[in-house]
């Protein structure tokens, strides 16, 4: 019974691992680091979902484009990585505004299905275009953060990268909160998200406001991609995997909650690393994301922090 024996072997190994405190901690840190990157892309998804009511499946592809630009600016042009990432965020915002203006705005905003199909088409087009421009061989984008770990317990390392990833995500959430709650364009964006017709009737120009949302989402997605890609190597399909984990994160957090997106990202990152390590499921890592989506949709369709829309009539 070789199959049974190998299964038992896995089980034994899992038991050994389960009692290994350092391994737990190591995977916990890795999970937080991955989770922070999923959280960034999930935030971008949530921004578009809140304002338009659909999931922008091209969000990962916009981030892919941004990360390639960061690669060009840093590795090819020799800018410091952090500067290159900021430049790429600005450039991808401009691309996103263009995409929104040309491919999204011509469609009526209250019919979601055609728009979703447009974003799926954009995903395929952008990913293929990246392959044509930059080829399919993998490339290395260096991390913005120094290597090494200030805190270590045996194999468990709290690296600068983990700290940087987490810090970046919390800074993004903080800045986003200030931008949306304290500025006029933020108020306009939330008004459009809340009630399109009344937003028009108070004189908000809906198109440019949504374009602003797309630009902001692209910048955040690019930042998230620049955090995750140093772990994964850069190639044209790299963000597709990230997108699926981020979708799971957004679904778990509640599609219309920014705090939920961050929470969901961290939980998905942790779940993925712990499951993969302790159940030896590395081939099924992506399946954990799908499992999260399924469980959320079955048990709590609004996610952890999502709102149920209640309308008085």
């Amino acid at each position, binding site marked *: 019974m070789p199959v049974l024996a190998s299964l038992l072997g896995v089980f034994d190994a899992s038991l050994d691992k389960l009692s290994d405190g350092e391994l737990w901690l190591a995977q916990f840190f890795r999970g937080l680091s991955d989770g922070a990157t999923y959280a960034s892309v999930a935030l971008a998804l949530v921004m578009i979902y809140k304002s338009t009511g659909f999931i922008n499946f091209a969000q990962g592809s916009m981030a892919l484009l941004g990360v390639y630009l960061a690669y060009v600016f840093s590795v090819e042009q020799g800018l410091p990585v952090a500067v290159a990432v900021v430049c790429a965020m600005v450039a991808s915002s401009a691309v996103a505004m263009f995409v929104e203006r040309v491919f999204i705005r011509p469609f009526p905003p209250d019919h979601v299905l055609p728009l979703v199909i447009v974003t799926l088409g954009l995903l395929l087009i952008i990913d293929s275009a990246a392959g044509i421009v930059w080829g399919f061989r993998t490339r290395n984008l260096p991390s913005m953060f120094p290597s090494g770990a200030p805190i270590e317990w045996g194999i468990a390392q709290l690296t600068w990268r983990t700290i940087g990833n987490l810090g970046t995500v919390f800074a993004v959430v903080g800045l986003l909160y200030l931008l949306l709650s304290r500025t*006029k364009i933020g*108020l*306009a964006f*939330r*008004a459009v*998200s*809340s*009630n399109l*017709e*009344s*937003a*028009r*009737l*108070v*004189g*908000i*120009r809906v198109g440019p406001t949504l374009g602003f949302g797309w630009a902001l989402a692209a910048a955040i997605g690019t930042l998230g991609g620049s955090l995750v890609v140093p772990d994964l190597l850069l190639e044209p399909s790299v963000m597709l995997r990230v997108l699926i984990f981020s979708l799971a994160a957004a679904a778990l957090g509640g599609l219309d909650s920014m705090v939920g997106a961050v929470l969901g990202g961290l939980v998905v990152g942790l779940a993925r690393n712990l499951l993969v390590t302790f159940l030896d499921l590395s081939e099924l890592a992506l399946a954990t994301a799908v499992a999260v989506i399924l469980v959320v949709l079955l048990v709590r369709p609004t996610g952890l922090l999502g*709102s149920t829309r*209640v*309308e*008085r*009539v």
Partner: protein
Amino acid sequence: MSAPYLEVQGLKAAYGDIQVLHGIDFTVAEGQIAVILGANGAGKTTTLRALCAMVSTEGSIKLGGEELAGRRTADIVRRGVAHVPQGRGTFPELSVEENLMAGAFVRSDADVRADVSRWYETFPVLGERRGQAAGSLSGGEQQMLAIARALMLRPSLLLLDEPSLGLAPMITRSLFEQLVAINADAGTTMLVVEQNASLALGVADVAYVLEAGEVALSGPADELAADDSVRRAYLGY
């Protein structure tokens, strides 16, 4: 009788292939309250939406002598036209205060804060709930908020689509009293679509009766209130 402030001529409006307004004419003088009566489907709501370019139109809409037809909603709002749409005129996820701030979106003067306080005084319940999400207010409170939100524009023309919809009669009456007071106080021209015809005719200066997308009757509100056909069709006695 002063010169018409709002002058609508040959206004047609359609949703896709379905023509709803077949060329209507009406005027409202500055500072007046005008009411539009009519059965369901007569085109009352469409008339208001047409004035704000929320539906595709033909014909002429002059406000203070200036042509509005062909302009975008955002530009029309900047010319002082505030519209309280039927039922859902608020931003449910935003707080009461943010709703009012959104109402002043096109204003950049220094008096916005003072206006917020002013409407809190007029509608004290809004002041008590300023931090609460608009969606958590009762129907009547939401309607007050929608009206206050529209007044934050300091409109020269206020369009109200069925302000009494879903409200208890007592609340409706006090809401209309407040509208009359605002009209007297600020001289805001108002165009009201209303099912509660007796109440609306009681406060209005002029009235128009729409039937199947055309103006069937028009005149001073008190004359229409005394008209036999209006009485039977809309006042029910």
